[in-house]
């Protein structure tokens, strides 16, 4: 039996649920019109990784251009939004098979250009996510990059020195 005490699991579960709802609330209050489709729906999957000097946030935003992605530091949270013009970015019929969100594709199972959708799981045209940042960080030194549909935001932690004011080297 590798199973832990079931009550631990329930506690863990409730804690996680609490986090989910906290995030949901955050989304509702923080990002305007992008209300989740149903409770618990998460538009953007994120990893948050911490090491001694930095907090790194990785966010999956497949199908978005770097220009479509907006990152903002608000209070103690990182707000990530992405918006593109078309729904899921399905391109019109044949021509070039690139289709990364350029044209075509309306909502619904049968579209104007004759597409019949057998599956439609990919995310919305506009997404947002609020990620609480648990520690003070240097907002000015934050950097972001976007590659292969993954946003990486690096937030250097504020060193304890800064809280005590500027340190002056003694020679």
């Amino acid at each position, binding site marked *: 039996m590798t199973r832990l005490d079931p009550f631990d699991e329930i506690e863990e579960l409730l804690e996680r649920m609490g986090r989910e709802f906290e995030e949901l609330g955050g989304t509702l209050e923080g990002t305007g019109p992008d209300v989740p489709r149903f409770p618990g729906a998460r538009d953007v999957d994120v990893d948050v990784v911490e090491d001694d000097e930095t907090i790194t946030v990785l966010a999956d935003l*497949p*199908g978005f251009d770097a220009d479509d992605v907006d990152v903002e530091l608000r209070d103690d949270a990182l707000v990530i939004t992405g918006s593109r013009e078309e729904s899921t970015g399905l391109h019109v019929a*044949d021509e070039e098979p*690139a289709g990364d969100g350029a044209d075509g594709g309306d909502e619904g199972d049968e579209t104007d250009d004759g597409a019949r*959708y057998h599956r439609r799981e990919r995310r919305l045209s506009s997404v947002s996510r609020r990620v609480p940042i648990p520690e003070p960080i240097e907002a000015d030194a934050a950097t972001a990059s976007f*590659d292969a549909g993954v946003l990486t935001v690096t937030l250097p932690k504020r060193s304890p020195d800064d809280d005590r004011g500027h340190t002056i080297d003694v020679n």
Partner: protein
Amino acid sequence: MNTTNPFDEIEQFLGRTPFAGERAWGRDLRTADIDVAEYDDEYVVMADLPGFDRDEIDVRAREDRLTIAAERDAEREDADRRYLRRERRHESVTRTVDLPTTARLDDATATYRHGVLTVTVPLDAVDADEGHRIDVN
């Protein structure tokens, strides 16, 4: 002995198993989200595969099945590097899609851009609209 644990039911109800890691809130972390659209002359499969290199993605078509597999090096986690949240999909993702029998697999093309794989499979036009015609002798 294989007694039913009542907590299993709660977990099932909530759509996830704590600590299992493979599922979070009913979402299977080992698959990719896809759109599958059928047009008159082609079948288009789009798969969200954020964070991969082109050469980490393997697309195979065999016997009217399209298999998309992607694998990247695992992110390391050690004492110096702690995950505060971990929701993104796994390093290894696969997804299989059934294709119509009219699919011309040899002429399929695939592109990867902005973390989205698009596979286009041309369809033989004959059966698409009219159904299969049977000659009368």
